[in-house]
């Protein structure tokens, strides 16, 4: 037997000696107390307002638009950014790739190439209003993790139908646990120097969100 296998046995033996024989695991888990709030109470409009307020609270820029206006809104945002080179996930809808910019479509781009891009445009999986969090599950339209990391400017498209109020409601929307997930709450930040919140250390320093009112 190898040393590693020995260690596993040693650690497990110690744990079992310490815990004895507890009741059946699945039954005990099912009985755990969960008295916290699962469902939100906000009506549709108030919910979106809360989402926007909390996004702005953490320095994200938010604009709203109707479903028909997405491409135009993206184009306007890109123009306003003053940037030119953008990366896009492979699955980003073609009509979102506004003309007049240098688009790098991600087909396993090298990290260096992603690093040279000035910005990135992606879709998203879910928005949690309670904490102003945007969740990416890194599907084809949300992109590999590196895309939303190296460029300094991230434009994220979030639909109002994707917004939930509470964190448990996000978990309700996961048919299966994701293998990859990144939750983003505002741009990269630090408070390591005298607890002063500074926008942007290593991740994108600018987070822009287009909230598409696709319901109501």
């Amino acid at each position, binding site marked *: 037997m190898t040393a590693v296998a020995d260690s596993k046995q040693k650690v497990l033996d110690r744990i079992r000696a*310490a815990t004895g024989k507890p009741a059946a695991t699945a039954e005990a888990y099912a009985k755990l107390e969960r008295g916290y709030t699962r469902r939100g109470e906000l009506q549709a409009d108030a919910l979106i307002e809360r989402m926007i307020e909390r996004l702005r609270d953490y320095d994200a820029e938010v604009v709203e638009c109707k479903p028909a206006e997405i491409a135009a809104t993206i184009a306007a945002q890109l123009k306003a950014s003053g940037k030119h080179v953008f990366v896009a996930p492979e699955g980003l809808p073609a009509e979102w790739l506004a003309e007049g910019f240098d688009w790098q479509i991600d087909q396993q781009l090298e990290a260096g190439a992603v690093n040279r891009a000035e910005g990135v445009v992606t879709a998203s999986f879910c928005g949690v209003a309670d904490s102003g969090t945007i969740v990416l599950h890194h599907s084809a339209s949300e992109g590999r993790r590196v895309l939303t990391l190296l460029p300094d400017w991230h434009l994220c498209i979030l639909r109002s139908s994707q917004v939930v109020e509470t*964190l448990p409601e*996000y978990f309700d929307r996961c048919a299966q646990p994701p293998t990859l997930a990144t*939750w983003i709450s505002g741009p990269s930040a630090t408070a390591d120097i005298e607890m002063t919140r500074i926008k942007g250390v290593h991740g994108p320093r600018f987070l822009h969100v287009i909230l598409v009112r696709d319901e109501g």
Partner: protein
Amino acid sequence: MSAISNRPILDPVYAPPFPVAALPVLRNAQLRKNVGHAIDVIQAKRARLVAEKTDWQELRTAAAGIRDHVLAHLDVYLEQFEERCTAAGGQVHWAADAAEARRIVLEILREEKASEVIKIKTMTSAEIQLNPFLESSGIHAYETDLAEIILQLGEEEPSHIVVPALHVNRSQVREIFARKMNLKDLSDEPKELTAAARNYLRQKFLSIPAAISGANFLVAETGAVSVVESEGNGRMCLTLPRTMITIAGIEKVLPRFRDLEVVLQLLGRSATGERMNPYTSLWTGVTPGDGPQKFHVILLDNGRSSILAKKTERQTLRCIRCAACMNSCPVYRQTGGHAYGSVYPGPIGAILTPQLQQLHHAQSLPYASSLCGACYEVCPVKINIPEVLLQLRSQVVDQERRQIRRFFDPMHLGLRVANLIFSQAWLFHAAQWMGKTGARLVTQKDGWIHWMPSVGGKWTMTRDLRGLPQQTFHDWWAGRAKGAK
């Protein structure tokens, strides 16, 4: 410029006892000011955002329940995690102690032929003193969290588990960065200092082939690992290198993905006073085309299973490392983190460190508390820290009184005499009479004792003592019975 603090020792085996280690800090006005300021800011933010949650207490109860459940079934969940993580392409290693964990890390890095490694802030790696070990083996570890860079470049030690450089102020950071990054014109604006760190590390993120992280949570159901952070340095380490090593304490596991809905609502608010930390990452083994293609998890015991065995103390392992306890602690506020002589300072350190050392070291830490209970009140997983502190104090006393050389120690001698007196009624009455007579000599007209001779003076030096009443309860009771007849 002089060092921010004389480099403190954070190895409990060699660190001086808490009261000794605390003295230099208490005399360092700048350091105390830095710590006080940082803590006031975090505390105010936390209080505001916790008040915003109407179900805070229910979340705490649920989190405590989930964590207790995991600890009771730890073997089941760890094996499940190993199985699922392995199925997803990860490689799971078990380390019984610090030396073993260090050796596993070194073997992986040697295999990768890595001479440099980038790191996300990880308490487990600090606990096993990984950096000096790697350095002595010819591998340089680059810390990437801003606070950790400040400490690494400034040759300083961490004093807090969430904001490790909170004892360093902006002008001290400027001085360190200007000197070590060779930036003569750097100002002390936090924004400019942060940008300096961004530039300093970007190339390293893109070129160094291996990274080391800790884990905030392991998910048994899926084999996933979760890391929460603010800056994005964590995401860099999790995404760019070829090889990734995660060192996780065995207690870090959660049963299901869904359980994150509880702990992640508590963690950000408790730790930094944010509704959610800027970035939370979750990954499962290896994903083709996205992120490191080799992934190792080291499950670290290093004394944890010995804590598991004890009924009262087991709750220590519920901890999710938010640091709310140290932010609320009146003792930590005065001494800062270095006095605790461990990488885990504050109230949680005062109970965790001596237990990880199995009480062979750090016996002074359970006394580094006024038992005011503020830590228990803010703890998101309801660890009753005062209760564990008392339990550990009793163990320290038991340990001491078995030592021959402490036989004539005034405290132990006194307690043995008290034990004798309380066991015999006649001895008790005699002692009462003697006490009354003796106390009369030092009791002032106002009925208080302001001064006592000898060891008693240690009490009256800082506190007054009420004089003994003329009539004892026994006297009064006996008199009352006679009068009734």
